[in-house]
């Protein structure tokens, strides 16, 4: 019982973290159909700038806000310079965003040095409680909480405003949306910035979780985020949440019960979902 609870709580927390990372990608890839391989780079920048701001201010909250701002600024630059010329062309998106990913990761080394950097957890979030054999790690509970809040906010915006609709319409036919009087370029820019901000937030939260930030972390996690977006059903927020939690839990359970498969668990999960429900767990429409 305690064992299952442990596996579940920790799997959930991992899932939520993956969700936060995938949330930005769901906006960018799911809604705008942009294959942004630089997403991991934005995530890593969020992580590093979070650690940086924490280092100079000692305040975790400021560090998170700083990371989000970094994400917004980088999102702005990325959209204007990198993404704008390639909307609607996946092949070019792959090339240009991979190039930008290299630039982003390498710039991290220029700015923050080439070494990994330790990330500290604020005192009020570090440590764990042990309740009846179940170990509740404070920081992980905190992440679950943030995940739920972010989900609620984004879901609210998508449901209660036209933005989601406009973006989806814009992907189907950009010209027509403009002909309806909407400055779709600006909308895309804002959505992209929001996606980048979410990536940076995920990075800033990831740092204390794993205790370390390093320049290659972006690439490592970006693929995981893509997996989550795809099995969640492109562009579906609830889908991403569910998929992320599934990935988190599957990782946790498999590592315990079928350790020999644990290396392959994400790939197996994705393959299974694609075979039995190729459109993903949810579709954007159902969301």
């Amino acid at each position, binding site marked *: 019982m305690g064992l299952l609870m442990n*596996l579940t709580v920790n799997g959930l927390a991992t899932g939520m973290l993956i969700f936060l990372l995938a949330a930005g990608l769901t906006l960018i890839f799911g809604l705008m159909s942009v294959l942004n391989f630089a997403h991991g780079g934005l995530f890593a920048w969020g992580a590093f700038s979070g650690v940086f701001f924490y280092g100079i201010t000692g305040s975790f909250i400021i560090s998170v806000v700083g990371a989000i701002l970094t994400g917004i600024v980088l999102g702005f630059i990325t959209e204007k310079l990198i993404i704008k010329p390639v909307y609607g062309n996946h092949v070019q998106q792959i090339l240009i965003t991979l190039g930008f990913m290299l630039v982003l990761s390498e710039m991290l080394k220029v700015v923050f040095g080439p070494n990994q950097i*330790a990330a500290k957890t604020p005192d009020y979030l570090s440590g764990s409680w042990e309740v009846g054999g179940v170990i509740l790690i404070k*920081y992980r509970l905190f992440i679950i909480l943030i995940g739920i809040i972010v989900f609620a906010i984004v879901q609210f915006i998508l449901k209660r405003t036209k933005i989601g609709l406009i973006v989806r319409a814009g992907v189907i036919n950009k010209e027509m949306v403009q002909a309806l009087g909407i400055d779709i370029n600006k909308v895309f820019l804002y959505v992209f910035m929001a996606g980048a901000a979410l990536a940076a937030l995920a990075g800033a939260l990831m740092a204390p979780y794993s205790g*370390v930030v390093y320049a290659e972390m972006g690439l490592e996690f970006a693929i995981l985020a893509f997996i989550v977006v795809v099995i969640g059903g492109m562009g579906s927020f609830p889908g991403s949440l569910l998929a992320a939690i599934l990935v988190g839990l599957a990782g946790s359970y498999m590592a315990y019960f079928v350790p020999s498969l*644990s290396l392959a668990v994400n790939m197996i999960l994705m393959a299974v979902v694609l075979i039995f429900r190729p459109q993903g767990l949810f579709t954007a429409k159902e969301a």
Partner: protein
Amino acid sequence: SGADEVEGSGSDETIKVGVLASLTGALESYGKQTQRGFDLGLEYATDGSMEVNGKKIEVVYEDTETKPEVAVQKATKLLEEDEVDFLVGSSSSGDTLAVLPLAEEYEKVMIVEPAVADSITGSEFNKYLFRTARNSSQDAVAGAASIAGEGVKIATFAPDYSFGWDGVEAFKNAAEDLGAEIVLEEYADPAATDFTANLQKIIESDPDYLFVVWAGANSPWNQISDMKLQEKGIKISTGAPDIPALSVMEPLVGMEGFSVYYHTLPDNEVNDWLVKEHTDRFDGEVPDLFTPGGMSAAIAIVEALEQTEGETDADQLIEVMEGMSFETPKGTMTFREEDHQALQTLYAIKLEQQEGVPYPVPVLIRELSPEETEPPIMN
């Protein structure tokens, strides 16, 4: 006129060394440590003259980018274009393995540093290679020596790939030789973010020690502390990594393990020189994990050349190098004749918090002598 000839050939007869290292990418910091160490080592061994027997030593560095095909390209360039007499490298075992056949093909001595895979001096051995780096088995033996004993129950935890398997395998042998009992071998996805399942199993197996073999930035330390392993009476032990990685090991303060090198551990002149020069030149930075390795490689080369009187013929070099002992920042190293592995000192340590140092510091418990950490011969 005979003298003229000698002089004539002597002036253009420089000895060239090609160093392969990961100067970009994930292993960049290792590559740079090797590079600095090698430069300093040459200077030290030649007393600043950069000459042996009147021959100038020239070093060419190449970045392998941690890609085997690039390593081969660069190694060939070094061998063919720069016509180097020695190869040194590399930061990753894969790159090194890919380059080994070239050393054999071109009949040049290659000093392996700091690649750690056992197979380099094992199944893939060829006579042209010598390794100043310690191998996985030595690490493991050292790890075992620092915690294993009669009746001690140990669980191991390692990443699920060759490095982890090799490390655990060797550790297990060494620890069992010392009378310990391995109660559990846990492996985790090296890229995992959540280690709950593994740690849960470890807790259940109730060992005295958890021996962790780990490499890479993504590490389980935070979670080990969050899951309160230490409070449950499980002592943690592992190899102390380089300084950037040490800084994330705060949760493990108090743990006992081993170290390949930390600048305060060895007590000898070479190390004193290294620490002093390194801090002077690099803004107060101290030498790190693989800096002495780079230095040792340089020292070994100069030592060998001195013995052959500047002759770079590989067969002659091999002859003098087999069994050769030389002084390094880590004390005396000896190339074992059978597999050309340098036997060397490792250190049993304890991690302590120290005033003014932003990371846990490995403090010496005792030196593990070259004999004590001698690995099995595997070629």
